[in-house]
């Protein structure tokens, strides 16, 4: 089944996820931070629950 996401949302996700990825200060998001990001983009529900 999976989830179908608009290209616009996928782009917004890519920007949010990868901006700053090359910086020295970058660190991996915590599960809570990842969940908050998904929620902010309207990616909600069981499919998007990180754990």
């Amino acid at each position, binding site marked *: 089944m*999976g*989830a*179908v*996401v*608009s*290209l*616009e949302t*996928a*782009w917004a*996700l*890519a*920007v949010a*996820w*990868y*901006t700053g*990825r*090359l910086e*020295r200060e970058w660190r*991996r998001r915590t599960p809570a931070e*990842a969940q908050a990001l*998904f929620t902010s983009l309207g990616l909600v529900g*069981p*499919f*998007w*629950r*990180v*754990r």
Partner: protein
Amino acid sequence: MITDELDLEVRLSVYRHFVRTGRAPSLSETSADVDVDSAAISASLERLDTRHVLVLHPTNRQLWMAMPFSAIPTGFRVTSGERAWWANCAWDALGISAMLQIPVEITTSCTDCGDPLTLRTTGRALSDPTGVVHFAVAAAAWWDDIGFT
């Protein structure tokens, strides 16, 4: 060099190499760049893999992914002028453009019908927002088998 500092330098070195060349660095290339012996680089890569900062191949332990980049050819080719990379998935293909803030052309195929697809970005936005992305694996299971995901 203490391990946290070494792991940071290795991560930065690996990513710089991917950005510049479109491919994964060899152990000796990273060793030369960070100025640390290959055994220490190898150990550092293992720690970074454990932390999901990058991904080593499950059996040969070579660099497999430094998200959004793939070390091996995939169904997502990302080009910008003369530069080219392989991305792990649609999200990562868009991520290359977003991360580097460059216009790209993403060449892939429709997973439903198999037709070739080209997506373009300006580096700051999609050139054409029409379309959808299918996520096959639920978020909680992404790291169960990251290669499959």
